[in-house]
Structures are given as C-alpha cells and as structure tokens.
C-alpha cells in the first residue's frame, strides 16, 4: 500500500530531513513511526500525502508515484488518505458537524448521504451528542476525536496520524489508540507517528524507528 524506495528529502537550506528511506507497508497493516522530535517523522508523513516532494527516490501509494504527481492531481490523492494532525486543524468557526462534513462536501455528496455518514463517523468516535458544538467548546481529546471522525468519514484506504496523542494524557491516548486499532480491523492501513514509546510498548505491531533522518529500526510484529 505504502512503499518508500530510497527516498531522500532535504529542505531548502541543505538540512537533510530524510536519507535513503526504504520500507513497504502492506494493505491493512498498522505500524508506528517512532523517533525523537526532528527525526523526520512528520516529513515522512507529509511525503505520503503530497505536502512535500522527495528530492530523490520514489514514494508509492497504492501504485501511484506521489512524487511524480502533477499539482492538480494532488487533491485527488488526498481524498484517499485520512490525515490526523497533532494540532487537529479544525475549522474554529464551524460546528463539529460541519467540520466532519467537509470532506464529503468537497466531493459534492448529497445532503442526505452527508448526514448519514457524518452521524456514523461521529458515533464511532463517541461525539454524536456534540454535533452542534463548536471546537472551542470541546476538550483537547474531544477535538482530536473530531479530527479522527473527519479523517474516516470518507472511508479512506490509508490513515496517517501525526502525533495524534501529543497533547493528551495517558487515558485519552489509550482511547485514541484503541480507536485506530478498531479502524485497522476494518481494513484501513494505519501509520501513526508518535514519540510516546510507553503507549505502544505492549502492542505487537510493526515499529519503524527514525533517527536523524535515517531508518534505524524496522521491528515487525512477529519479532
């Protein structure tokens, strides 16, 4: 599903963010991306959804080379990806319902279908009763769950999460992680970046470890 072939990325200014990254994530797999701050976790995720372009190598998502896509094709790539951000990226002047509905509005879905699918997504993250609220009225954990609902409302093939538990306490982090595992069971490929090793220690999942832009560990679930 996601394949990196000798990918390198340097930001303007010369600082190499990623060097020679090589891995393959199968369809339906769930993996964690670990490493210190600045190790290149965010950059790796941004390469997958076309927010950045690799300087070298290939990033292949579902058979398409992301680094070769034209600028006008990138929105269509992103529609297949559910992105979850540490800072949520919610629209503060829209209700929870509207926030979750945006991916479907972009696709021009009929109102009835939007209502049905938004309700389903909000139900899944346990926020069905906060539909009419504004993000500011919700706690950090709830806002993150709105972000997740928005990411899954369009039933994406891939879920990318950049430090989704970064600002949350242990209890809430575990809830979020459990949600990801549930989604993974429905067949969604999940790649989650985190520096919280304690959270994922007892999970028997694949762990990709980045250190200063290099892939220094690829521990498979079987190990």
């Amino acid at each position, binding site marked *: 599903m996601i394949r990196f072939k000798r990918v390198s990325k340097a930001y303007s200014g010369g600082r190499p963010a990623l060097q020679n990254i090589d891995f393959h994530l199968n369809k339906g797999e769930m993996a964690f991306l670990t490493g210190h701050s600045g190790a290149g976790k965010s950059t790796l995720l941004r390469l997958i*959804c076309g*927010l950045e372009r690799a300087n070298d190598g290939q990033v292949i998502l579902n058979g398409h080379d992301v680094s070769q896509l034209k600028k*006008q094709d990138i*929105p*269509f*790539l*992103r*529609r297949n*990806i559910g*992105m979850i*951000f540490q800072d949520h*990226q*919610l*629209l*503060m*002047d829209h209700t929870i319902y509207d926030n979750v509905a*945006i*991916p479907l*509005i*972009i*696709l*021009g*879905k*009929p*109102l009835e*279908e939007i209502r049905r699918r938004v309700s389903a997504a909000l139900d899944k993250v346990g926020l069905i009763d906060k539909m009419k609220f504004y993000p500011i009225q919700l706690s950090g954990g709830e806002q993150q769950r709105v972000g997740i609902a*928005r990411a899954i409302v369009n039933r994406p093939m891939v879920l990318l999460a950049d430090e989704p538990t970064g600002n949350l306490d242990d209890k809430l982090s575990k809830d979020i992680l459990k949600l990801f595992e549930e989604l993974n069971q429905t067949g969604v490929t999940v790649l989650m970046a985190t520096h919280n090793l304690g959270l994922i220690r007892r999970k028997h999942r694949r762990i990709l470890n980045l250190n200063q832009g290099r892939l220094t560990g690829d521990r498979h679930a079987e190990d």
Partner: protein
Amino acid sequence: MLRIRKNNQQRDDNSFFPRWKRQIHYAWQNVYNDFRQHAIASLLTIIVIAISITLPTIGYLLWKNANQAAHQWYPTPNLTVYINKTLNQKDTDNLIKQITQFPEVERVNYLSRDETLQEFKLWSGFSEALELLDENPLPAVAIIMPKDEAKQTAILHAIQTEIVKLKGVDDVRLDDSWFTRLTTFTDMVKTIVWTISIFMMIAVALVIGNSIRLAIFSRRQTIIVMQLIGATDGFILRPFLYSGMFNGFISAILALILSEIFIFRIDAIILNVSSVFGTIFNLEGLNWDESLFIILIATMIGWLSALLATKKYLNMPHIN
C-alpha cells in the same frame, strides 16, 4: 414507479451535473454566510464600488443628453451654393443634377434668381432699394441638405471644396461655426467621460480585489484545512469568485438607482432653466440596454479581479 425514481436518484448521486450543482449551491451558501457575518463591511465595500460606478454613469448621461440637445436645438448645417449669373437654364439644371448625385447629399433646394429676389424682399425690408436697380443683383442659389451621416465638419468641408470646383459655381458657403463649436464641446465631454470611466473601472477592480484579498486572508486557516483534505483549487476559489461577482452585480444595481435619483433631481432644475429660455428639454435616463451593459461590465470586473486576487494567493507556497 417510486422505486424506479429512487434508483435513478441513486445513480445520479455521483454523476457530474448534480455534484456540480451541489458544489455551486455550497459556494453560494458560503457567499451568503460570509455576507451576513460581515454585513457592515460588505455594505461599505458595495457602497464604495457603487459610487465608483455612479460617477462615470452620470458622466455618460450628461454626454448623451448634451449630444441630444445639440441635435434638437441647433439647425442642421447646410451648404449654400451661389450659381454664376451668366449660366443658362439648361446648364443650371445640369449643375443641380450633378450636385444631387453626390453620395453625401440628402436633397437640394434650388432657388432661381427671381425666387431669391422675392425672398430677399420678404425678409430684408430693402424692397424699395432693390426697385432702384436696373437689374436683379442676386444670384440663383442651391441649398444643400447633407445626409445625417455626413454632418461632420471634415466631410462638409470636403463637399464644399468638391462643389466649388464645378463649372458655373461662384462660391459655396458653409455656416458651421455653431456646429463646429458644439461638436468639439461634446467630443471633449466624451473624452472626459471615457477617461473617468477607465479610472473608475480600475478603482472598482482594485476595491473588489482588495476586499477579496482580505476575505482570503481572514479565511487562511480554512483554506489550508480545505487543501489538506483534498479540495481542488477550483473548489476553494469558487466562493471568492462568486463573492466578487456578487459585489459587482449588487453595486451596479445600486449605481443605477443612484444615477436615476440624480437624473430625477437634476431634471426638475433643467426643466426650470429650459422653460426660462423658452424651450422644453427633458433629461433622458438610462435605457434597458445601457443598464444591462453596466450590470454585465461590473459583474465581469468583479469576477476578474477576484480571480486575479485568488489565483495569486493559491500560487504562493503557504502550507506549513
């Protein structure tokens, strides 16, 4: 029956046209919400644009009416041909025929020597003085009425020099002093109106572009989020383009109302003035074609300046 319709509906759900319609509906809804949220600011913008459109519109109306007045009040210029006294009747007939054949000539009024004498006696009051002369001192004249499209100083002068060359013509007089003055005056007004119009159109474009730029700036976060979850540039642009068009359209309508009010106010004064001068002159407002033209132009300027402002923004790398 119901079942078939339902099936059709489901099939239509993701086909191009209904999807497009829904997205356009969404964009207009966005424009409406935005307008409602920033009602005062939007109204101020619209008033500024409306005044910018009103000024050249009023200028145009003044020119149009001045032009009309010029045609209404002043007699059309005509050429007077003085025919040589020695010319016999047959040659004179030929000469008149020749003049009539000019393409610019509408019709020719021929007055024989006797007729001019009669006229002179009638109008001048020197009838007794003329009796004293042995011979009729007046020549025969042909008065040329030019066609409407030939009523321009340059063309009239050209005809004049052509006719003077004809055999049997002593002189051709063109009384166009008033006509020339008036034409130059209306031409000047026309140039001024054009210049003002161009400046005002630029002003309208800048005002709309600027208000769109501000709207984009205040919705920066929304745009970034939209881009992150896969909105195309077109989808993001659409509400801004519509809002530019909307601003142009509403402002044009407001401008038309303002110009009508102006015409209404000034009409009473003009009527007063013209009645003092012993004529009646009514100001004419804008007709349907002109109103439609102004609305279309304003809407197009709105759309175009919004397009320029948004394109420029979207081409900047700003997702971080």
